[in-house]
Structure formats: C-alpha cells, structure tokens
C-alpha cells in the first residue's frame, strides 16, 4: 500500500494509505490513528481498493482547526470520499471512526454501499460508562485497548523505546495532537446524540466487536443493533477494542464475507 496526499474542498490536506483493486472501501481510523503496521488493511486490499485516510491532526494530515464539531467531522468524511473520486464506497469505521462513519451514513444514507462499524464510539449507556481515555496514564491506555496489553503497548508505540527521552517526547507530542483532535467529538463523553439520528441509516450494516473489549464493552453492540434499522452483530473472540490489529485475519475474513 502507498501513501498519498489529497486536498479537500474545505481546505484540509490529508494523507491517505491506498492499495489493492476492486470495489472501493474507505476505512476511517479511531482516536489512536493508524499504527506503524496495519496488516488488516493489506488483507482487505487483497480483495478491494482500500483507502485509509488520516483525520486532520493525525500523521501528516493538516487542517486541524477546520474541524470543530461532529457535523464538521462527518462532512469532512464525505469531502474525503469526493476528493478521492469515489462513488458509493463501502465504509468501515473503527471506534471514533465508526462514530463518524455512522454519522456520515445518517446524513447521506444513499451515498454509501455497505457499512462496517468496529467497536464504534458514539453511544452512551448510563449503566456501562466508558472509561475516560483522556484521564489515563500511557500504560493504562494499553490495558483497556488490548486483550494482551504488553503486546498492545508495543503496537501503539511501533516498537519505539520509550525509555529513550527523545522517543518518548516524540511519541508524547504526536499523541497529544491526535487526542486533542479526537477530544472535539469524544470529550468529555463520547456522545453527540447520534442515537437520535441512526433511524436514517439505510445501509446494510455489520457491527463487529472484540469479545474482550474493555474500552467499549460488547454490551454496546446490542444497543447499536437496536438503533440501526438493518444491522447484524458479530463478536470476535481473542480481541479487545483494537480488534483489527489484534486479530487481523478474523477481521478481514468477517469484513470480506459481509462485503462479498
């Protein structure tokens, strides 16, 4: 897969990871961004033309200041689809990306083919409050994101040695910028009233969940199923919130079957 830059009409400049051929699939990442290695995207690119744009505030993408609220993010998602010249792509969104993808699908229900939501944020159950990712020490973050926190921490940092002060500083600055951006739609509670708009979602939807998700627990899957007119739920064992990275084969398999 290859990186390229695209410009949206609004004025953001976004980096997109692109590869494969076939029907177009757009993958929207979550608050943690794309990682150094994203093998599940390679897997998807075996069957589809995959586009994975980075939100402003992530990687080389710029225009952070242009997006301030949920509507800005959702319209930006469609601006990206336009800038990529795609027509009715399949859309996949993970975590915060799922929240945005669902919002996009409510705004323009006929502009996408199928929708996959992977451990999406955006719904709040009072009896199962989601842990506050903005009030966590780095190691605590890995604990809630991954089934295997040690392996997860290595994935998050791309194997960088964080006992090295320079590496730590770089990692810290990148993380601060990303989460500052994510906070605009996730802070203090990741609920921008999407649930009252989900009735509009027309696309056939697959809701994928890591069975051991400690950030957004699997109870949430049932709520999504109840709110979306045409959704099915699939839970994957041995995976936490970072399911696509934790079980890339199972993820690709589930998505490929659904999109086939």
């Amino acid at each position, binding site marked *: 897969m290859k990186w390229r830059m695209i410009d949206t009409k609004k004025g953001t400049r976004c980096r997109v990871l692109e590869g494969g051929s076939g029907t177009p699939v757009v993958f929207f990442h979550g608050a943690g961004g794309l990682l150094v290695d994203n093998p599940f995207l390679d897997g998807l690119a075996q069957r589809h033309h995959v586009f994975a744009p980075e939100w402003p505030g992530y990687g080389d993408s710029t225009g952070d200041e242009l997006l301030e609220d949920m509507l800005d993010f959702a319209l930006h998602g469609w601006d990206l689809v336009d800038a990529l010249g795609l027509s009715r792509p399949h859309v996949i969104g993970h975590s915060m990306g799922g929240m945005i993808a669902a919002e996009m699908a409510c705004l323009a229900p006929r502009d996408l083919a199928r929708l996959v939501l992977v451990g999406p944020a955006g719904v709040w159950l009072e009896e199962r409050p989601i842990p506050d990712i903005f009030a966590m020490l780095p190691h605590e973050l890995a604990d809630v994101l991954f089934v295997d926190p040690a392996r997860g921490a290595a994935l998050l940092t791309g194997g960088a040695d964080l006992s090295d002060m320079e590496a730590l500083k770089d990692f*810290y600055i990148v993380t601060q910028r990303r989460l500052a951006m994510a906070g*605009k739609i996730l802070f203090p509670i990741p609920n921008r009233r999407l649930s009252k708009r989900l009735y509009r979602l027309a696309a056939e939807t697959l809701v994928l969940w890591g069975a051991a998700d400690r950030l957004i627990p699997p109870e949430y899957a049932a709520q999504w199923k109840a709110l979306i007119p045409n959704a099915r739920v699939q839970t994957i064992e041995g995976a936490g919130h970072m399911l696509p990275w934790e079980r890339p084969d199972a993820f690709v398999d589930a998505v490929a079957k659904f999109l086939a």
Partner: protein
Amino acid sequence: MKFTWFNLMPWPYLPDDFRERHRSVWVDIPNTLYDPRKGHHVYHTYLDQLEYAETLGFDGIGCNEHHQNGYGLMPSPNLIAATLARRTSRAAICVIGNSIAGYNPPIRVAEEFAMLDVMSGGRLVAGFPVGTSMDTNFCYGQIPALTRDKYREAHEMIMKAWASDEPFAFDGKYNQLRWVNCWPKPIQKPHPPIYIPGGGSIETWDFCLDYDYNYSYLSFFGYLRGKSLLDGYWERVAKRGKDDSPYRAAFAQIICVADSDAEAERLYAEHCLYFFNRCLHVFPPFADPPGYRTMATVKYGALSQLTRARQKILENLTWKQLVDERFIIAGSPETVRQQLEECIKGLRIGHLFCLFHNGNMPDWKTRHSSKLFAEKVMPRLRDLWPDYKHDERWWIHPMDDRLRPEEQRPGAEKKHEEWPR
C-alpha cells in the same frame, strides 16, 4: 508594593495516608472525606481570617475558583467575595478569578462581578483565568482543544457587556445572546482592574499586553523557579514597547513568619508539608489532557508534565528543601524580609499574593504569622518601587463615600432616610 492576603481554603482533614490511598486530590477525590458540619467551622474560620487581614493593613484580600478539589473550598469564589463585601470596607477584594470558559453564558460573570464591585463600593479586582484543566475540562466538561477559543469569546462578551451603554446582540460560536444588557454595571470605569493568572504560554503574555491587564503567575514552587518565566514575560513587555511598571505583574508566594527561623520550622513545617504532600497530589493526566495546552507550548515544555518526577519531588519533601529551594519563604521577620526583597526585585513584581494559611494550619498560627508579617515585614517592603509610587493602573479605584456595612450591628434601628439623590 501591594500585598494581598490570599486563602486557597484547603480542607484541613485529609487523612495521613491520603497520598497512598487516593490517586488525586482533585477531580475524583472521594467526597466522603468532606464533612459539612466541620465545613461550617472551616468556612467561618477562613472568612474571619480574610477579614482579619484587612485590619492588619493588607491592601487586598483574595480568593479563587477550584472545583472538586481538596485544597480549595471555593467552587464559587463570588459567594466568598460577597460575604467579604459586607464585612470589610477598605481592602481590595481580589477574585482571581472566575474561569470564564466554563460559564454558560459568560454574561453571568459580567453580572456577578458587577454586583461585587457595586456592593463593595468599587473594590473588586477581577481575575479571568482560563482555569486549570482539572477545573475547566474534567470538572466542568469543556473540550480541551476548544477551551482557549471559548475563553477568548467569553472575555469578549464580558468586556463588551461592561463597556456598552446599549443592549447588543452577541453572535458567538459558543454563546448566542440576542439581548446582552449588563445590569447592574460596575462602579470602576472603564472596568475593574483585570488580572490574568497564567502559566508560561506566550499567548497569555500577549493577551495581557494587548489589553494592558495584569499578568499573575500563581505557582506554589517559589521565585527561584518562577524567575525564568517572569524574565520571559518582561522580555515580551519590552519587545512590545510597553513600560516596565512592576504593577503589570503579580506573584503568589507561601510565607511563614515566626520569631526565629527555628521557631518557623517548629510552628509551620507540619502544615506546609501537608500542603505539598497531600494537597498537590494530582493524578498527572488530569493536569494535561490533550488539547488543553497549545501545540507550541507542548513542544516547548513537552516532558515537564509527562515524567512523574514532579510528583516524586512532592512525596519526599522536607522542610529544609522547601526553605532552601525557596518553595516557601519562612523564618524570622528579617529572613523573610531579605528573601522577599530578593523575590520581588528578582521577579519585578508590584503585587504579591501572600499565602499565610497553608494546608491544615490552625487559625492561631495563621494569624500569628500574618500579624508578624504585617507589623515587621510589610512596612519594610512597601517602598521597593519608588519610581512607580503613584502607578495605580492595576489597582482598585473605590468610591470615596462608600458605606461601612461592617460597622453596623445587624438589625440595628435606623433613622428615617430617603434614597440618596
């Protein structure tokens, strides 16, 4: 020099093992540690102290806003200030301040500050902090990356509300009000002196200089550590072509005065250590959510919050360290005078926020320390800035004929009087 007696109002009953048992004194402190019946006594003790400070000759008495915080019992400093407005009549009432990014709509601050200014006869000093991330983001739910933008908008609304003599429409990003019409309006014109408590961000310096507001550096870590920051501020002042009146700047300092240096340790060590060990025990992520600081500031001092070194320092502090590293200024009147002179001149500040009550210090020690300071130290530091003797730009301008409500017995009979013309 102007001296303001400031009370953070810490909760004095945090248990000895607070640090070990709880991760933070702020935001998620177990609220079962608060006992309202004890709180009744605590409030009145602290309020009495502030009133006492006026009688000692302090120029100002001060309070501030913190939420869900073991060292602050003032989620609404305006309530504190309101009681002081009725029980004092000379000192400036310094509310440092209202964290305006958290108020919806911010016109509430324009109104309440105007009420305080009117009730006190024009004695309000109005502080507009961005607010700590603990307060503004975690307790009051504001989005970190938008907090500064919202702050700027709130400031614009308040200042316009005070300045305008006609109702106006305010079409803000965060607040839309069709009819802004501040009522009552402050006595002090064009507005009460405005203080901006800040950390090290260059944006805050410029903000203060754009509007000629006072820049207040509120740190608990003393003047040796504050020096580089204030140096940066004064460089900026010079670069912007502003005069270098020391009254442009204020600094907060913990001060303990006793008859001798040894006596100071004997009287105050326990309470100062309570403050540093327990009251400053803040879970690091609460202090630095992504987006709260600008990217420029993050890059400048990236690791200062990240390492737990700062928290580590607090764990094992000793009195000797507190004194030697000048986190606090403590000792005999002469020791305190010397060190404060060094502090005031070194930082070039015209306003000192003096913290005499610290941690769980009992009332009598607080009064003892304050009194010694007022009698033996303050007079000798008064005239450190002779060139700016008459510079009152950053101080209150009260009504001459203001009332003295504190001199009146509650319920006293009054003679028949018409409204003054």
